[in-house]
């Protein structure tokens, strides 16, 4: 099947593969190590999936702020994003 007209690039493929991998990981974790909700810094009950969503959404805004404000290499935005994600998984 020829899908070259969709103009996929390796970078977007990696991006979506990572997200798909994270979702697969979450599914596997949910099966192997079931969890219950916990209440963290946001004062709402969250599951691992909720924390992943908050991490990804927040990371998107961090990356946009990085691109818009810093002018540094966009790849470096991964560092604050990972720090943020770690904080979300630890405290939220």
């Amino acid at each position: 099947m020829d899908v070259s007209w969709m103009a996929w690039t390796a970078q977007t493929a990696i991006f979506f593969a990572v997200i798909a991998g994270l979702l697969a990981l979450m599914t596997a974790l949910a099966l192997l190590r079931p969890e219950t909700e916990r209440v963290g810094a946001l004062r709402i009950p969250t599951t691992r999936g909720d924390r992943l969503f908050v991490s990804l959404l927040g990371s998107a805004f961090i990356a946009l702020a990085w691109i818009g404000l810093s002018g540094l290499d966009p790849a470096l935005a991964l560092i604050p994003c990972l720090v943020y994600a770690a904080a979300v998984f630890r405290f939220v």
Partner: protein
Amino acid sequence: MTKPLDNRAWLLVVPVFAIVAFSAVLPLMTVVNYSVQDTFGNNQFFWNGVGWFKELLDPATDLGGRFFAALWRTLLFSAIILAIQVPLGIVVALSMPREGWTVALCLVLMALPLLIPWNVVGTIWQVFGRGDIGLMGWGLNRLGFDYNYNGGVIAAWFTIVLMDVWHWTSLVALLCYAGLKSIPDAYYQAARIDGASRWAVFTTIQLPKMRRVLLIAVLLRFMDSFMIYTEPFVLTGGGPGNATTFLSIDLVKIALGQFDLGKAAALSIVYNLIILAVCWVFYTVMTHAGADRGVRGDPAAGEAPDHAVPPATTIPLDRRAA
């Protein structure tokens, strides 16, 4: 738990998943893919990295200037809509009859604007506001106002805001009315015994009891007004100049008017992210609004998240039982 969980039931969701993948997920992925590329047509794409995002988020560039101007315009529009529709909706709900045949009449009349398609609403107001054949436009001009929604910025905004108020205040009013109807009569009796004023009844009984529906109304109206497209597009087409070019209108201009797929895709993603963030707040607040007070009232659950031992062992046991 008496019924065993059978996770094979998830297989029944597969057809929906396939349809959503083709109608929503794949197109969205394509948008992400376009946002990092440039095209000159002929289906030839060139890698542009985060170039479009850089341009979009820099107000000094043409694209960034347009984006931020449209974003502020859209936020201003949403703020005006909320500031008018929420208090007005409450007042309308408070003035509606509580019993008798007039209730049904009121509900039907209130629901009518909600049933009219967006483009028809735009057309109605386009004609209604015209100076030559429209009742409102003709009337305002005869009263001495210089009213022309195609020429004046204030007139254009006035018409769009009025149109949205006409279209959607009913929704806020109906939601508030449902909230008011759910207040037991005992509250009002107690207020009468205490000799509470009308204002005291409103602030201490009705408003707190409407809190949840008001939250829903505010968030629904914010989302709707933030994503508004059809009505202003039909009425003013984004004009005069760019005075009523909201984000959605600008997006369509860039994507379909100029065929700048990369720029439009970058704008779509940022627009989408803002909406996604608000949606998440919307969903979280709505699902936890009732439970919120319970958590605060219970220090063990609220204060010690890490020590609140989850009954993790119960779930595998349940599954084993299944």
